[in-house]
C-alpha cells in the first residue's frame, strides 16, 4: 500500500466538544459510526497516514479542561488529556513513582511528550507502550465514562491484545488512578531501544516492597515481549517472601526470560529479547531494591 505521510488522505467530520458532557453525548450519538477519539494524535494520526484505518468522525478531547489535571492528594489521579511532559514535571511523580517518571522520559522526544497523553498510550494499546509496565506494577486503574455509566478497570485487565481494549464505542477514558505506593517500596523502569528516541525492543518495570533483606511483595511487568504487556507472575512468586541475594536474583532473571513470549519483528528478535530480559530484570530489580527508603 502506497502511503503519503505529507497529508491526511482520509476525509472525516471534526468534532471538538468543550465539556465532558458534550463529549459523552456525542459518543452516544455516534456510537454506531466509525468515530475515533483524538487527544495528542501522535499515534492516531500516524496510523491514519500509514494504514487503512477507517475514520468517519474524529472527536478532539484535548480542549476539555475538566479532563486536564493531576490530583496528588491520595496516590495520583491523572486526567485523560494531561500531557506527558506536564505529568513528568509533577514533583510527586519523580519522588514516589520512579518507574512512571522514567518511562515518560524514555518516550520519543520533548515535542511528542508535550502532545501525548497517558490515556492515549493506554487506548492505543501497543505492546510497546512504555507507560503500561509501570502502571501495571503500581496496580493502576482507569475510569471509563459513558453517557449513563461509569466503570473502573485495572490497567492489566483493560488491554486485551495488540491495539485491543475493553473500551466500548460510547465510552472514553476519563482518568488514570494510581494508588499510593508503600512507604517501604521502590520502583524502576528500564528500556532497550535502537536509539533513545525509539520504541522499545523490550522494557521492564519493577515495584518491590522491602523489609530489611526480605522481599515482601514485588510486581514485574515486561513490554514488547507478547501481544500485551506481561506480568511476570512466576518470577514474582520466586521472589515473594524470600531473602534477596544475588543467587535469587539470577534465578529470577532466568525465570523471567522463560516467562516472556517475544517474537521476531522489525525491532528485534525473540532470541535477543529472551537473552537481554535477564540483564534487564536483574538491573531493574537492583535499582528498585536500592531505592527503598529505610
Amino acid at each position, binding site marked *: 500500500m502506497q502511503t503519503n*505521510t*505529507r*497529508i*491526511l*488522505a*482520509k*476525509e*472525516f*467530520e*471534526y468534532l*471538538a466538544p468543550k465539556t465532558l458532557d458534550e463529549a459523552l453525548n456525542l459518543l452516544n450519538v455516534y456510537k454506531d459510526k466509525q468515530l475515533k477519539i*483524538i487527544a495528542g*494524535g*501522535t499515534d492516531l*494520526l*500516524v496510523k491514519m*497516514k*500509514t494504514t487503512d484505518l477507517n475514520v468517519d468522525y*474524529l472527536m*478532539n478531547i*484535548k*480542549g476539555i479542561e475538566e479532563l486536564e489535571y493531576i490530583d496528588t492528594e491520595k496516590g495520583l489521579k491523572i486526567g485523560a488529556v494531561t500531557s506527558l*511532559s506536564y505529568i513528568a514535571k509533577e514533583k510527586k511523580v519523580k519522588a514516589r513513582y520512579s518507574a512512571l517518571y522514567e518511562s515518560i522520559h524514555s518516550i*520519543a*522526544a*520533548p*515535542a*511528542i511528550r*508535550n*502532545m501525548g497523553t497517558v490515556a492515549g498510550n493506554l487506548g492505543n494499546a501497543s505492546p510497546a507502550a512504555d507507560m503500561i509496565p509501570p502502571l501495571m506494577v503500581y496496580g493502576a486503574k482507569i475510569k471509563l465514562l459513558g453517557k449513563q455509566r461509569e466503570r473502573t478497570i485495572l490497567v492489566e485487565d483493560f488491554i486485551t491484545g495488540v491495539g485491543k481494549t475493553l473500551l466500548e464505542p460510547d465510552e472514553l477514558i476519563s482518568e488514570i488512578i494510581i494508588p499510593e505506593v508503600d512507604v517501604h517500596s521502590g520502583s524502576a523502569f528500564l528500556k532497550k531501544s535502537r*536509539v*533513545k*528516541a525509539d520504541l522499545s525492543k523490550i522494557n521492564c518495570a519493577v515495584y518491590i516492597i522491602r523489609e530489611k533483606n526480605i522481599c515482601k511483595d514485588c510486581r514485574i511487568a515486561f513490554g514488547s515481549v507478547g501481544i500485551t504487556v506481561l506480568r511476570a507472575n512466576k518470577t514474582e512468586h520466586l521472589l515473594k517472601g524470600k531473602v534477596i541475594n544475588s543467587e535469587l536474583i539470577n534465578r529470577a532473571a532466568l525465570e523471567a526470560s522463560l516467562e516472556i513470549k517475544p517474537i521476531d519483528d522489525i525491532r528485534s528478535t525473540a532470541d535477543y529479547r529472551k537473552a537481554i530480559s535477564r540483564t534487564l530484570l536483574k538491573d531493574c530489580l537492583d535499582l528498585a531494591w536500592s531505592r527503598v527508603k529505610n
Partner: protein
Amino acid sequence: MDKIPVEFTLNGQKKQIMVFPNDLLINILRDELYLTGTKYGCGIGECGACTVFINDEPVLSCLTLAASVNGKEITTIEGLAKGNELHPMQIAFLKNAAVQCGFCTPGMILTAIALLKENPNPTEEEIKEYMRGNICRCTGYVQIIKAIKACASEQNKVKR
C-alpha cells in the same frame, strides 16, 4: 467535507482562516500562509523538522490538525527575529557553523530555545537528551551542540 473556521495567533498576528477537517498544520503554514521555514521531513513524528511552538511549547506540526489550533498561539521559525534582529539562538547557530543545508535548522533552533527555557545551563548530555527528536543528516551534531552551549553561556552572562 466542509471547511471549518479556525482562529489563532501566528507570530503575533491574529489569523482567521477556513480549513478542511483533515488539513494538517504543517501544510496550512507552508502552502496557505507561505511560511515555508517549517519543513516536512518524515510526516510521522520522528525527525523534528516540522517543529513549531504552540503556546510556547514545541510540538510537531505534521501530527497536528489545523482545526485543533483554534484559540492558540503559534510561533514558527519566522517569528523569532524582531525585524532585522535575530534571536540569540539563531545568532549562535550561525556563529558556530551549526547550519549546513539548513533543513533541520528551524526545528533545531525552536527545540533548543525550549531547552534553555526549561534548563538554562544544560550539560552536553542534557542537550543531546533534549534534542534527540531532531535529526540532522549533514552536521554530525557537533556544531549544533556547540551552538546551544554558546547560546546558553551568552544568556547566562547577560543575566549576571
